[in-house]
């Protein structure tokens, strides 16, 4: 009988400890625990044996949206004051035979113009890639998709949408709206003035915001990851979620961040 009582007492004690841990300490301990496995893929674009270039110049006319799909290369995007869309593509391949099959196709559909690599005949992704240098009129909507490469956006004015996988994202100067989705990427957003929506997983993201009329309305949620911020928001930890919400100023421009298994840093100058 004695052992039964001891067993029950130990189970009861552990249960109380577990409840207290989950309720009061659990998330702090979990947050301090380092991730066991860090996985990274080198995103440096491979040096291809052969390359060719294509250039597209398109008057804006009724075009309001641009889509660029890249892989294993760099996509550079900037806004200009001209009314012309300029796209310069560099296609790389392991050999001339593969390169001859490849081309960047320009497709205009309604008010959207799209650029993507075509002619890949099922060969491995590592055998070919494409880099773009894009200049578009300020105020346009730009959607960039990138896999295993990098995205560089400089002085952009308009609506920006980025979808990156295993890529480096570097944005310097944005006036407008940004919607960013990233997986296994490094996202570095600096000098941002405007609403932003960021969804990432297994990524390291930095968002540096500029002060703006109307202020920001922050809605940050990090699951199984780390949130750092200098905005002065109150941080709540619920289970493995870290939440921070609240406005600065009038809270006009929403900043929505949803992150899983990543590190998010939010700075407001």
């Amino acid at each position, binding site marked *: 009988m004695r052992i039964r009582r001891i067993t029950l007492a130990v189970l009861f004690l552990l249960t109380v400890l577990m409840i207290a*841990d989950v309720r009061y300490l659990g998330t702090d*301990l979990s947050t301090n625990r380092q991730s066991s496995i860090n996985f990274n893929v080198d995103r440096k674009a491979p040096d291809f044996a052969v390359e060719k270039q294509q250039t597209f110049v398109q008057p804006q006319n009724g075009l309001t949206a641009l889509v660029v799909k890249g892989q294993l290369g760099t996509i550079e995007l900037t806004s200009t004051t001209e009314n012309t869309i300029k796209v310069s593509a560099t296609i790389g391949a392991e050999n001339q035979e593969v390169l001859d099959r490849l081309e960047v196709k320009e497709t205009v559909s309604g008010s959207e113009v799209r650029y993507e690599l075509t002619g890949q005949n099922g060969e491995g992704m590592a055998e070919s890639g494409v880099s773009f240098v894009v200049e578009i009129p300020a105020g346009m909507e730009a959607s960039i998709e990138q896999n295993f490469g990098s995205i560089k956006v400089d002085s952009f004015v308009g609506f920006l949408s980025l979808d990156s996988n295993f890529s480096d994202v570097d944005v310097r100067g944005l006036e407008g709206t940004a919607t960013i989705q990233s997986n296994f990427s490094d996202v570095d957003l600096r000098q941002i003035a405007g609403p932003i929506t960021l969804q990432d997983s297994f990524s390291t993201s930095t968002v540096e915001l500029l002060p703006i009329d109307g202020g920001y309305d922050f809605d940050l949620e990090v699951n199984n990851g780390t949130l750092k911020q200098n905005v002065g928001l109150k941080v709540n930890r619920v289970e493995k979620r870290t939440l921070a919400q609240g406005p600065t100023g009038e809270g006009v421009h929403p900043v929505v961040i949803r992150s899983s298994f990543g590190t998010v840093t939010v700075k407001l100058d």
Partner: protein
Amino acid sequence: MKSFLRLLRKDLEASRWPMGFLSAITLGIMLLVSLKIATGGWPTQAAVAAVTFPLVFLPLWVLWQSFQTLRTEWREDTVYTLLVLPEPGWKIMLAKLSAILLEYTVLLVVTVVGMLIFFFPMVQEAMLVLPGAGWVVRNGILLYVFSLFMIASTIIFVQLAFVVSKMVGRLQGLVALWTLLLSGWLVDRLGILLEPLFGWIPTIPVHALFRLNELKQGMVADWNIAPEIGTWLGTLALLVLTSYLFEHYVEVNG
């Protein structure tokens, strides 16, 4: 050692029928799927399901079997014999654990052999995108070894849960489930608390171990084992605790 082997043989003999049945089912499903694919009834992708099904089922079976081997001792009253044997509790528990690991290995081998027999053309096709047979075998063995450790931990948790449940008079099923949950939480927290003690241990370069660069250049995976060591020590301590409780305090009539 001899007594350990005798205990191991006893447990293996007890599970030979379920093992045979499961092996036959696995091979039967693979044969059926391969025939359906050959006659054009099913798409070739069905082969993936036929191979995945036993692999997904295996951990569930291990969980059940860990519980069942102990339950059988009570159900058939052989626990009396076990407890009067001049063998320490750890040897009995370790024999049961080893038996389940061996059974897991046999079922895994049956699945792999079945895959090679019934879906060889698809295996050949898959090999075209992988670095080579040597790479596949090496990584397969490494994954198998890692899976053994994970399964052994699961078995230890279940054994503790069962033994503790036999130490209370009523609601044994509930107590077993609750103990399972508590032991998982306990070793997890132990890992976190002891992590600073093992921070000096260098990370393990998993990419080098698995030769991931042969699959794709630039892959880097580092395993920081500092948080795991406390968990492993805790799991080992649970095995010792289970053995001690089984040897000294368990309720035969429970």
